[in-house]
């Protein structure tokens, strides 16, 4: 009888999902989350990638508060799950062992005009992304010569201080690190040139990770990133040309590998060169080359395999705007190859896609149909998205989107690295994977409204739903808490789940000096997944600006409890044998609070930032094996020769 009731509940639930998807179909597309430089400055965030913590559209996790794993679409954050990074339409692919690393760009926070987080399928510059885009727009230089730079430092509390010479001695928890940048640019009538130099240091001295890290290297446990970039843009009457290039070196960079349960040091070199051309916004073409070079560090005790990864993307886009119903046609060829002594990708490295955007209506509402056909390894994957935006009442906008995306697992960078083609590192580490389907499908739908309440509160409310399938492998213990039991490696899972939820954004300006923002995401998730992000995430911020040159801010982020299947070394065991692992899966919820101020001086040429993070000094982790950020102080100075 109980089984019958459960079955009925499941059927009713599925009917609700189908009805919702149908209702979504009748309306249009979502709103993107756009973050501007001033939003970045009015937080305690230290680096541009840190800002993702403040977006409810993105789920993040990290073991070290440096390498952020990102999920824009509620998929597992560990997989390369479809989201892409673009800077001014250039496609960037900084990857380590198949994982995208957002913080390895040669980009200073000072260069950011805005960061657009697109969480629905979108066609941008010939590239179709089914699972989200982080599109960074850089500032356009002012005419003439300009020079700017910044010096930022973070210091985490919890050092022993003088007590280290007493019976109360405790381990040294070092600084968070530095971020220094120097930019020189020259803008002329028809274009500009820009050189950037960047130095970043991040220390891994927190007690939660220090022991693991120091056992793999004799180097000081801190990442040192040195980067340089060159950008050039030329505007003609008919033609626009843009070149972006960057070289990044980070040594030692520590990457936590979930399947192996620990960090590994490496010397990472990332090189990127992109060219974009545009003729009267009718014909656009792009060339993107990315090289990820992983080498062993000189002082490493344990390392993973070194390799070079080359990726090439050729994109074109035609915009037929003069038709009754405009049309955009994109074509993309992508290739990537891993090259090393042991790993050689042979064949199956090129994929092609034809991407189309049909506008169905542009008068009373904007309706569009996005289609993408991806051909890879003699198989075709289809992506369809129907989006609509419609004005209702006076100041309100109703939007909805419905999409279906198919993806080739074997084209996934993460799978390619670990599974092949060529050598399978997973097999070598004792992970035997069964055969699995190469094509899986993701369905998503959104419906929402953007309006103004009480003439002062800008509001957008959105319901979302998605249905997804994904493949996943991980270590599993036969018992969650038994320290003495041998781990049992159940490695491959196929997940099939439905998630739904609500996102609310409120933006309220009390008066000229006080401004507050609230974002809330509630997820009701029925998902048989390895990871579970917080069901509730709430971000609240309030700014007090008595003068245009002074801002006092405070922000709070609430994250509810979440769950991950990961393992921790038993501190009583010396080695890293399997029996030394202890399961630790629950991440407690909590509030992250911060407060600080920004003071502009010298006709807005100089900005002084001071902030305190984690003001309640509570335990805050993004990963069960990861570090806890204690109360910390962030301070920095920015300089613009021509003012900001």
């Amino acid at each position, binding site marked *: 009888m109980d089984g019958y009731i459960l079955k009925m509940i499941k059927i009713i639930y599925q009917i609700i999902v189908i009805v919702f998807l149908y209702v979504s179909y009748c309306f249009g597309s979502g709103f993107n989350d756009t973050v501007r430089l001033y939003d970045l400055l009015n937080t305690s965030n230290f680096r541009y990638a840190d800002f993702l913590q403040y977006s409810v559209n993105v789920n993040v996790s990290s073991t070290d508060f440096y390498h952020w794993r990102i999920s824009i679409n509620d998929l597992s954050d560990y997989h390369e799950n479809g989201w892409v990074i673009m800077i001014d339409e250039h496609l960037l692919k900084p990857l380590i062992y198949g994982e995208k690393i957002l913080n390895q760009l040669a980009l200073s926070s000072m260069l950011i005009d805005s960061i657009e987080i697109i969480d629905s399928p979108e066609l941008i510059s010939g590239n179709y992304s089914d699972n989200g885009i982080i599109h960074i727009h850089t500032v356009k230089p002012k005419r003439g010569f300009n020079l700017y730079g910044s010096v930022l430092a973070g*210091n985490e*509390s*919890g*050092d*022993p*201080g*003088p*007590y*280290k*010479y*007493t019976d*109360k001695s*405790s381990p*040294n*928890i070092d*600084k968070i690190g530095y971020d220094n940048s120097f930019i020189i640019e020259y803008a002329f009538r028809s274009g500009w040139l820009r050189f950037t130099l960047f130095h970043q240091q991040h220390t891994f001295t927190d007690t939660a990770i220090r022991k693991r890290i120091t056992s793999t290297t004799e180097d000081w446990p801190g990442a040192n990133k040195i980067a340089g970039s060159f950008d050039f843009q030329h505007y003609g009457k008919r033609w626009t040309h843009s070149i972006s290039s960057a070289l990044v070196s980070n040594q030692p960079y520590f990457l936590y590998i979930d399947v192996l349960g620990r960090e590994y040091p490496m010397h990472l070199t990332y090189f990127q060169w992109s060219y974009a051309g545009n003729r009267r916004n009718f014909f656009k073409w792009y060339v993107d080359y990315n090289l990820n070079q992983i080498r062993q560090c000189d002082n490493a005790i344990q390392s993973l395999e070194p390799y070079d990864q080359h990726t090439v993307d050729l994109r074109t886009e035609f915009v037929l705007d003069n038709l009754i119903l405009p049309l955009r046609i994109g074509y993309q060829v992508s290739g990537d190859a891993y090259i090393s002594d042991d790993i050689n990708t042979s064949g199956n490295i090129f994929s092609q896609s034809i991407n189309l955007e049909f506008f169905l209506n542009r008068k009373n509402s904007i309706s569009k149909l996005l289609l993408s056909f991806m051909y890879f390894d003699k198989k075709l994957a289809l992506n369809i998205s129907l989006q609509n935006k419609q004005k209702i009442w006076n100041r309100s906008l109703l939007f909805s989107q419905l999409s279906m995306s198919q993806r080739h697992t074997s084209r996934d960078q993460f799978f390619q690295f670990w599974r092949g083609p060529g050598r399978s590192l997973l097999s070598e580490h004792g992970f035997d994977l069964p055969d699995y389907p190469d094509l899986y499908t993701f369905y998503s739908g959104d419906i929402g409204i953007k309006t103004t309440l009480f003439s002062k509160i800008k509001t957008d409310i959105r319901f979302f739903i998605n249905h997804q399938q994904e493949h996943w492998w991980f270590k599993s213990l036969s018992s969650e808490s038994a320290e003495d039991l041998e781990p049992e490696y159940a490695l491959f899972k196929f997940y099939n789940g439905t998630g739904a939820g609500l996102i609310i954004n409120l933006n309220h300006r009390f008066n000229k000096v006080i401004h507050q923002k609230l974002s809330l995401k509630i997820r009701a998730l029925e998902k048989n997944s390895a990871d579970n992000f917080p069901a509730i995430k709430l971000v609240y911020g309030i700014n*007090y600006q*008595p*003068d245009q*040159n*002074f801002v*006092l801010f*405070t922000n709070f982020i609430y994250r509810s409890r979440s769950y991950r299947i990961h393992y921790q070394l038993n501190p009583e065991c010396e080695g890293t044998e399997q029996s030394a692992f202890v399961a630790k899966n629950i991440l407690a919820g909590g509030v992250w609070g911060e*407060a600080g101020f920004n003071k502009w*001086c*010298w*006709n807005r040429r*100089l900005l002084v930032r*001071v902030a*305190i993070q984690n*003001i*309640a*000094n509570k335990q805050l982790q993004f990963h069960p094996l990861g570090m806890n950020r*204690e*109360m*910390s*102080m962030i*301070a920095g100075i920015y300089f613009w020769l021509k003012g900001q």
Partner: protein
Amino acid sequence: MKKQPVCIILLFLLTSTVSGSSRNAEPFSTIQWAIGPLTNIIRTDINRYWCHSGGFAMKARTPFYFGAAELGVAFHSYDEYKSVEFTQVHCYLAFLKEFSILKKIPIYLGVTIGNSFFRFDSEENQYLQNESELTLGISGGIEIPITQKLSAEITSYYSKIFTFHAIKTTNLGLLFAYKITTPRWMAIFLK
């Protein structure tokens, strides 16, 4: 206990911002320089190991958007314990509110945010001879005018240094202050 200084700072900033519009002086219109000796007045856990052997403070105060802002540095030296003596340099920024309880004798009360740098005089590992740590505190003082520009100030600081075992110190100082009209170039810079 750990949250107390933070709560006090937030409460102070909240009350300051609410009453911020009723400021008396134009922001950055004057600068008051002050210097004088400091002494440790309450024994805490750190004094079980080291004794405060003296200190002095230098600071500059200016009217701000709400109340006054103060930039200061305080030096403290501590006597030897197990062949280790150390110097603490506390650099801070303070937001202060002025209260005039007695006529012409202003009282200041506010919060400080800063960093304490420790320099240890020890023959141990050279790399670990310096350390720095977040320091929050409360500051208060009475200003007694001597001439129109010169005044004496009795100041008290309560600071909490966020080391693993927090260090709490309370200091009392007698400072001599001299007020000037902010030079134009400096006013432009600060604004």
